């Protein structure tokens, strides 16, 4: 690279020197317009100037070509490096993934196996516990049931007292009866309806008449 740059600079210096010679000839021909300077300027000067410009053009063209090639090569190298890096990274990642998946899978499977073992152990424990607890609980329940037998007695007693007292049905009937007698809501409703039915009082009276009839029917009950 250094050699190339030095080579380029040498050619450029040659071109610059040729340009200076050509310029000197041209200026000489202008300042001293005699045959020799004019002839030299129009022949040698022209040739040297053209050669200098040609060398400069070639050097620049070469430099441009070299820089473009270098840029292209660098781009290609970058692309190749990128591809290589990508390959490496992908390969490393895939290997890591494989290793990780192996580790995870084995760890997970071991964990799952452990969990399964635990589950089975728990279930066995549960079974054992249920085996142990169920007879005891049932016996306890039976015992409790036996112990709570007075409740049955109480219930019999309650039944007996209920039979003895028996006011509740009567009260209930009594409570029913005034309800039937009072029956304010239906009456009112009927009252409110009644005006629409031209104040038909007859049904109210008939119901009141019925109620004493029910209350007043002890003869039948007693009989």
């Amino acid at each position, binding site marked *: 690279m250094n050699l190339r*740059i030095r080579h*380029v*600079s040498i050619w*450029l*210096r040659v*071109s*610059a*020197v040729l*340009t*200076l010679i*050509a*310029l000197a000839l*041209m*200026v000489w*021909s*202008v*300042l001293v*317009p*005699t*045959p020799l300077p*004019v*002839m030299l*300027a*129009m022949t040698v*000067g*022209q040739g040297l*100037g053209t050669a*200098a*410009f040609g060398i*400069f*053009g070639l*050097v*620049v063209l070469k*430099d441009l070509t070299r820089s473009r090639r270098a840029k292209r090569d660098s781009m290609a190298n970058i692309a190749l490096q990128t591809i290589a890096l990508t390959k490496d990274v992908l390969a490393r990642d895939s290997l890591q993934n494989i290793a990780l998946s192996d580790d995870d899978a084995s760890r997970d499977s071991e964990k799952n196996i452990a969990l399964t073992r635990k589950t089975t152990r728990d279930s066995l424990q549960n079974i054992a516990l249920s085996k142990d607890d169920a007879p005891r609980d049932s016996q306890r329940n039976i015992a409790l049931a036996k112990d709570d037998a007075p409740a049955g007695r109480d219930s019999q007693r309650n039944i007996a007292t209920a039979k003895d007292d028996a006011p509740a049905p009567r009260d209930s009937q009594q409570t029913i009866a005034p309800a039937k007698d009072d029956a304010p809501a239906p009456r009112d409703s009927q009252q409110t309806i009644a005006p629409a039915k031209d104040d038909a009082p007859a049904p109210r009276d008939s119901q009141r008449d019925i109620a004493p009839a029910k209350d007043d029917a002890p003869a039948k009950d007693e009989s």
Partner: protein
Amino acid sequence: MGFNPLAWITIGFAASSAVLVIWFLLRRPLLTRSTKIILLFGIGLLPLGTAMTGNYAGFEATKQRSFCGSCHVMTPYANDSGDPKSETLAARHGRNGMFGDENCYTCHADYGMFGTVKTKLGGLRHVYEYVLHYHDMPLEEAKRTIHIRQPFKNETCMHCHSTQNPGWNAVAEHKSILEPVRTGAVSCASEGCHGPAHPFTKNLSANDPSTKDLTVKGHTP
């Protein structure tokens, strides 16, 4: 010779170019884009301008009588044509403003389609002959030996004297030899007509047998 403004432009271009080129030679900068652009001006564009204006100035300079007389063998011809007291044909034309300081070129130029190019090529031949044969030749010897390479054409005279002007035709000699003059059979500059343009060489060459074969009938150098 008056200093041509074109010469100033040429010198300006050359000086600018030289400054850039010398800067490059002394500083030796890296070949960056700016250096290339500077060198494009220093080696390419400014020298191109120098060449264009310099060549034009050079071509203009080659038309000058002083340029022709810069070779020692041409000094008598240039001095005579520029002498205001001379009665030679060349001197009389030289006093005409249409010819002026370029009277050598005006008379000896070829006025054909490629006249300028042929004239310049003829000038190159003059330089070649001078450098190789006449550079060290004594003036007196050169006066005897130097001669025009081809007969002087009447067409050159007819470039201004058209032979159709009534005043020209009113001259009896012109009217009598009108056709030979137009065809070039009789030279305008022949003895008995207008005479040789540079007569101071004729007496010498007439007595010199080495130049007899160079003198064409009806034409004089």
